[in-house]
């Protein structure tokens, strides 16, 4: 294997995962709207149709419910299905096969039949696309027993989590964000897994624990770097998987720092940040020195106007200010 320092774009890291696992395992196939169109899935499906043919790379009519149900059915009967929804909003038509069927299947059949399917969906927002082209619905899915939900923020994780998701014997929701597609990072050339259910510490610190996932990690890391200039020492956790949650990693950090800020690109009420806050209060209450602060979307549909979009989407500044509210500036050491 060549250099371990090879850099790749997020979208191409996911693409490499498909190339390698489809080569390795003939039961893997990709189905969904637009898999042959860069306009839908960016570079993520580049070269797959040419290499693996239309039997295993299937562009479909706009029939989200049927296509997703078919992916579930194929998974039940020996395939490893990946079904893509190029916009998360379009996946709502498919919630029946995802929730009623796939999520419950193994349990309600007494463990006699499992569903190795990946529901891959892309959050695709901004650009004045308004309410039906902007939604991040990860917590709806994470609420459902029987579904695993992964949300990689780096090219390394984009590849490794896709491999793990496909190899997993359970239904896994793999969510990426179009805003991450051009992010570059180191991606090993060989096939590898990133374990589902394990977060990562992106930055060590002692003053406050800052938790994020997916695209908002870009803002989270910027915020931590900015606060470091003020001598505020932020420990940054990238959840990577939001179901099952890596509670141990978060708890260990909060027990050390005593403070928690959670950032999420989804809505606030009943959302990811609510869940993180709740289990921290349940399991680390006596370590907590300050109120938890949440940085999220407001509880509003996505607006079209970019003026409103600017107010709508959380920024680095919002996270910096959230942390300043609970961590006092320390004098800079000389």
């Amino acid at each position, binding site marked *: 294997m060549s250099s371990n320092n090879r850099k790749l774009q997020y979208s191409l890291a996911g693409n490499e995962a498909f190339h390698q696992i489809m080569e390795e395992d003939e039961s893997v196939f990709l189905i969904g709207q*637009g898999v*042959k*169109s*860069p*306009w*839908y899935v960016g570079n993520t499906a580049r070269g797959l149709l040419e290499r693996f043919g239309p039997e295993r790379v299937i*562009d479909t*009519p*706009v*029939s*989200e*419910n*049927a296509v997703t149900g078919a992916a579930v059915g194929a998974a039940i009967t020996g395939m490893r299905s990946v079904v893509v929804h190029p916009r998360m*909003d*379009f996946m*709502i*038509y498919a919630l029946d096969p995802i929730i009623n069927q796939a999520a419950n299947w193994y349990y309600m059949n007494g463990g006699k039949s499992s569903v190795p399917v990946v529901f891959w969906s892309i959050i695709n927002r901004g*650009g*004045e*696309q*308004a*309410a*039906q*082209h902007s939604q991040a619905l990860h917590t709806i899915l994470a609420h459902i027993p029987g579904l695993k939900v992964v949300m990689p923020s780096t090219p390394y994780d984009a590849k490794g989590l896709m491999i793990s998701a496909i190899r997993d014997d359970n239904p896994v929701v793999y969510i990426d964000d179009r805003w991450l597609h051009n992010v570059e990072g180191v991606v090993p050339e060989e096939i590898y897994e990133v374990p589902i259910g394990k977060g990562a510490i992106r930055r060590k610190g002692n003053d406050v624990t800052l938790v994020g996932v997916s695209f908002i990690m870009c803002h989270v890391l910027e915020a931590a770097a900015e606060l470091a200039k003020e001598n505020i020492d932020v420990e940054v956790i990238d959840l990577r998987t939001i179901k099952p949650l890596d509670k141990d990693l978060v708890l260990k950090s909060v027990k050390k720092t005593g403070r928690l800020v959670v950032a999420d690109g989804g809505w606030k009420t009943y959302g990811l940040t609510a869940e993180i806050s709740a289990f921290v209060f349940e399991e680390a209450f006596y370590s907590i020195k300050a109120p938890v602060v949440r940085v999220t979307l*407001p*509880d*509003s*549909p996505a*607006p*079209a*106007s*970019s*003026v*409103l979009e*600017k*107010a*709508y989407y959380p920024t680095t500044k919002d996270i910096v200010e959230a942390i300043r509210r609970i961590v006092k500036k320390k004098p800079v050491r000389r």
Partner: protein
Amino acid sequence: MKKYSKEFLQKLYRTMLRIRVCEESLVDPILKKEVLCPVHLCSGEEAVAVGVCAALDDKDFVFGNHRSHGHFIAKGGQVKEMVAEIYVKETGCSRGRGGSMHLIDPEKGMLGSAPIVSGTISLAVGAALAFSIRKEKQVSVSFFGDGATNEGVLFECMNLAALRKLPVIFVCENNFYATHMPVAECRPDCNIVDIAKPFNISSVRVDGNNVLDVFEAAKQAVTACREGHGPFFIEAVTYRLRGHVGPDDNIQGLHTDIRPQEEVDIWKKKDPVINFEKQLLDNDILSESEVSKIKKEIDKEIREAHVFADNSSYPKESELNAYVFK
């Protein structure tokens, strides 16, 4: 053509031209990134919207899709409010919250549009259900594309509407492409008109580039619905002269428009606006000078709509959550 009044024919022409000029007026602002929201132009498909809406009254309802500028204008929506919405201004028909894909003018019976494929078909059925519960004679129209015929909800809607004899007209604008997918790659049988038959729904296929053919089909559908013999299904065969989104998918660098140039050229010859204009001239319905006067008036109207949009303010940041609940 003789059976129609000059006023009526002139109105059809004016409305089609208004849509065309408005659509084409957006090309430059899109390319210059003055318009940022996704815009699905309907140039080439004007005759469907205009023909159908000419058979409706203000109190009849219309629901659209992602490509609904034409439906909005044909139903009598305020052009300047639509243009302002495309520029996401507070004066827009959806107050800058919706953009090009969410157009509404309830007073004119334009009840809304939304880009989830097939997403508003059931809403049109629901409007027809309300008419039927209230024993009103209105009709409801659902405009959708050939791509929507691949969604299960359309078939559920046809069944429900037929079962309850609801006054709803399903109008499929078959432009042969569901975004990048040719209709033949989406359906084993491209006779979309036939999909209504198993539900005992009267259906007809028309030349969607001929406004009078569309009008006659719509009139038949409206009459049937008002007399309690709904629903009705119209397949209007047409073609979009622009890209799926924006002026040209290829210009925008994505090279996703796979339509053969020869095909585009054939359809350019079937341009519904140019051909209707020629028909009106040939039949002495309009003179050259009348046509040029109409063109000037419409150019002015559309220019003014852009000025109105330009002079309008964006929504206020402080009102981000203004319309979450009533």
